[in-house]
């Protein structure tokens, strides 16, 4: 017999059984969708057979990892993932901060409202539709860019066989999709700045550029730092939907556009290399986890209010 102490777990369950029942669906949901797959990470060390399943398949040690690192893809996709993310972090945030500061200071009320709505619009459409936009603009035979080039007497460009061009296209569309979203974020930070600071600066005769440099920018720095650190935490993760819809399944430009996530989905669905794909996923998960924990440690040192956990 287990005596139920008044402070024990069973006592709590009994006393708050309705609350436990109410939170149970979410607990079960995350257990099934996240915790079981976490245990399934052992697949990286197994040779997957359909009949054996996740836990019954035979162990193969580090064979899958050898295969992944020997294939030559590992280094390429890691480098691409990190470099693309660095470009996104720098370009997207600079653009968003710029538009937020401009919008917060310019005079026309309706102009502000309208342009903010327009810039926020790309956030709402699916990446499939963005893929249609890319096709419409960059198609070799009748894409709008080539139509324009031909009309001013220049040679049309074939981006589909030009890996370098996709770096710019992907970065441009990422900036395009997120500019409105980030502007909302940074505008919220600017609006919450104490108006008295600006009034005091006005009395001291500061001009608008001085106010931006000495009041607005320092005031939104905490927001900026948190967003930057969060992005750094995700530096090993590529946005599969974006890369896949913008580039499509174009083998010619893979060296320049393949990130870990596109590599994983392609290996899973097309070549069905379960073991090697699981090894790539394992590598990404572990690497990501250590980066996030380190980033969180740094945030805690700077300002513990912003720490994630």
């Amino acid at each position, binding site marked *: 017999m287990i005596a139920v102490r008044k402070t024990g777990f069973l006592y709590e369950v009994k006393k*708050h059984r*309705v*609350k436990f029942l*109410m939170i149970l669906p*979410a607990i079960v*949901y*995350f257990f*099934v*969708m*996240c*915790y*079981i*797959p976490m*245990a*399934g*990470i052992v697949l990286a060390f197994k040779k997957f057979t359909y009949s054996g*399943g*996740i836990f019954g398949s035979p162990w193969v040690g580090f064979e899958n990892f050898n295969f992944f690192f020997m294939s030559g893809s590992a280094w390429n996709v890691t480098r691409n993932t990190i470099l693309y993310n660095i470009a996104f972090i720098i370009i997207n945030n600079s653009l968003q901060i710029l*538009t937020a500061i*401009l*919008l917060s*200071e*310019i*005079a*026309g009320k309706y*102009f502000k409202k309208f*342009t903010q709505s327009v810039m*926020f*619009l790309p956030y709402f459409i*699916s990446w*499939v*539709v963005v*893929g*249609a*936009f890319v*096709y*419409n*603009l960059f198609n070799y*035979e*009748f894409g*709008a860019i*080539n*139509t324009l080039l*031909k009309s001013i007497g220049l040679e049309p460009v074939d981006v589909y066989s030009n890996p370098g061009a996709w770096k710019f296209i992907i970065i441009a569309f990422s900036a395009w999709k997120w*500019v409105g979203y980030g502007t*909302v*974020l940074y505008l*919220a930070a600017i609006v919450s700045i104490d108006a008295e600071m600006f009034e005091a600066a006005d009395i001291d005769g500061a001009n*608008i*550029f001085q106010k931006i440099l000495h009041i607005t920018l320092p005031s939104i720095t905490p*927001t900026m730092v948190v967003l930057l650190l969060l992005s750094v935490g995700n530096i090993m993760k590529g946005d599969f*939907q974006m890369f896949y819809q913008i580039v499509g399944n174009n083998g010619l430009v893979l060296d320049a556009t393949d990130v870990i996530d596109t590599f*994983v*989905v392609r290996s899973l669905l097309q070549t069905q290399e379960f073991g090697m794909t699981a090894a790539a*996923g394992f590598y990404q*998960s572990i690497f990501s986890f250590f980066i*996030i924990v380190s980033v969180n440690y740094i945030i805690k040192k700077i300002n513990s209010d*912003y720490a*994630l*956990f």
Partner: protein
Amino acid sequence: MIIRKDRIAFNVIGYLLISFISILCLVPFIMVLTGSITSQESILRDGFRLFPKEVSYEAYTIIFKSPDMLVRSYIVSTLVTIVGAVMGLFFTAMTAYIITCKDFRYRDQISFYFYFTTIFGGGLVPWYILLVKYLHMKDNYVALVFPLLLNVIYILIMKSFMKSIPDAIAESARIDGAGDFMIFIKLILPLSKPALATIGLFIALNYWNDWYNAMLFIEKQEMYPLQYFLYQILSKVDFINQAAARSGVPVPLMPSEAVKLAMTVVATGPIIFLYPFVQKYFVKGITIGAVKG
């Protein structure tokens, strides 16, 4: 009031740059719209342009001549969005409410149990095998609803909304003999209406725009949601040929380029139409999410 020079300079730069960025944001939408109403001959000869040279509504006529696939995918997406958003919102709110209850002792541990899933994961392969092999999600509508049902970030945003509801309200109901579930349904939910609208719209948008789960789990054409159907139209020649066969247009005469873009317009239409009404909720959600971090 004196109009100062620096203000004028700033406004000139501001208006120019913001106008420029806004135009860049809008141009792709306009290009797809004009492309969809350009005749096939003009597209092949002149390419896509900002303003059509020869206007033709043939692409739309062909789409609506035999719209059964389109209508089916619309119905699938609409039902998945409604069912997913209602269920997702209900469980998000209920979970958020419990982790705000101060007398619930394990709320910090359970919050961390949720939060940990955002910093570590098993990767795609075990998840995919679990869903396909053990939960039989292949060609199952549940596969379109289940993966997007709950999101830790939305639970946290909902929690920070609910924290502002005074404890005294729930406390007085408890003294009157109401149980936890009744307090949640009768008191907390009505008081959280603005939060429910915001989070509900975020969840609904995720479902409406989803094609990834369809790509992973759905093979039967008649089960495609709208975005995945659009993806097939854009990327696969045989889908255009099928559309030609159904509408009785000979394949070589099919205005396939305009049809692709017309499909894009038809699939994006509802979002653009609803956008002015829902925009403010998204702005609010992002702002609160930012504060919460």
